[in-house]
C-alpha cells in the first residue's frame, strides 16, 4: 500500500525590489489614516537612519524578516499626540506604544498589499527600543528597503528587512 502522506513545502515569497513602492504606499496610508497627517517622501535622504525611538515588528512565514520605524523621540511624541490626543505628550510610554502600533499597522498594511502574503505571514507584537547609540544587525543573507518620510523637518525611517 502506497503511503498517502504528503510533505507540505513551505511557500516562500521572494524579495522584490518593487516592494519599496508598496512600502511607501503602505506607510503613507497608515500615517494619514491613523495620525491624520500627510507625510511626504524624502526621495534622496543623505543620512543613515537615526533617531531615539525604534519600533520593530517581526514577520514570519512566507516572508521572514522585520519592519521597523525609527524617528526622534520628539517626533514619536508628536505622532502619539495626533493619534491619542494631547494627553499622550505627558506619558512617554504612550508615545512608545503608539509608535509600536504604527509599526504594526505599517507591516500589516504592507503584507495585505502583497498577493498571497496576507494569510501566509504572521506578525509579532511590536517592540520599541529607546536610545540613540546603537546599531541593528540581522542574520545574513538579508535584503530590504528603507524609505524616509518627512514629518515637519524630520525624517521618519521605515525599513523592511527580509531573509530568504
Amino acid at each position: 500500500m502506497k503511503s498517502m502522506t504528503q510533505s507540505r513545502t513551505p511557500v516562500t515569497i521572494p524579495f522584490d525590489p518593487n516592494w519599496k513602492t508598496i512600502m511607501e504606499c503602505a506607510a503613507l496610508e497608515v500615517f494619514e489614516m491613523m495620525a491624520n497627517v500627510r507625510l511626504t517622501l524624502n526621495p534622496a535622504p543623505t543620512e543613515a537612519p537615526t533617531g531615539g525611538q525604534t519600533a520593530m515588528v517581526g514577520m514570519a512565514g512566507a516572508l521572514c524578516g522585520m519592519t521597523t520605524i525609527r524617528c526622534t523621540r520628539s517626533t514619536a511624541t508628536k505622532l502619539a499626540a495626533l493619534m491619542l490626543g494631547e494627553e499622550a505628550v505627558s506619558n512617554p510610554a504612550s508615545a512608545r506604544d503608539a509608535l509600536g502600533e504604527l509599526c504594526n499597522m505599517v507591516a500589516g498594511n504592507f503584507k495585505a498589499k502583497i498577493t498571497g502574503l496576507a494569510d501566509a505571514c504572521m506578525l509579532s507584537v511590536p517592540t520599541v527600543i529607546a536610545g540613540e547609540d546603537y546599531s541593528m544587525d540581522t542574520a545574513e543573507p538579508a535584503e530590504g528597503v528603507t524609505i524616509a518620510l518627512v514629518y515637519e523637518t524630520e525624517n521618519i525611517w521605515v525599513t523592511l528587512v527580509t531573509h530568504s
Partner: protein
Amino acid sequence: MKKLKVLIVDDSSVMRKIVERALRQAGLDINEVAEASNGAEALAEIQKGVPDMILSDINMPVMDGLEFLKNLATLDSAKGVPVIMITTEGSEARVVEALSAGAKGYLRKPFTPEQVKERVAPLLGGGQ
C-alpha cells in the same frame, strides 16, 4: 440621541484608546467605554453590564477574538449585541472565520473615523 456603552477588546492599551478616540471623532455619542485586554476579560466585563456594541481585536493572548465570539454566543444576556472585529493583518481566512462565528462586521487597521462610523452606525439601530 441614545447614549451608548461600548466594550473595546484589544491587548494593546494604546489601540483601545485609538479605537475609542475614533468612535468619538466619528460623532458617535459614547456614554461609557469598557475595556478588556483579551476575550476572557471581555466576558467578565459583560457579566458586569451588557454593552450596546463590542469592538474586538482578533489576535490576543489568553483568549483570542474567535474564541471570544464562540463563548459570547453561549451568553443569553449578550444575545443580539453586535460585534465588530478589528484586524491588522488583512487575513481573509480569519475574517471569514469571525463572520461565521457571529461577528457582524470587521474593521481593518489602519482606519479613519469615517470608516469606523460606516461600520458601526448601521449596527446601532436608531439614534445615531
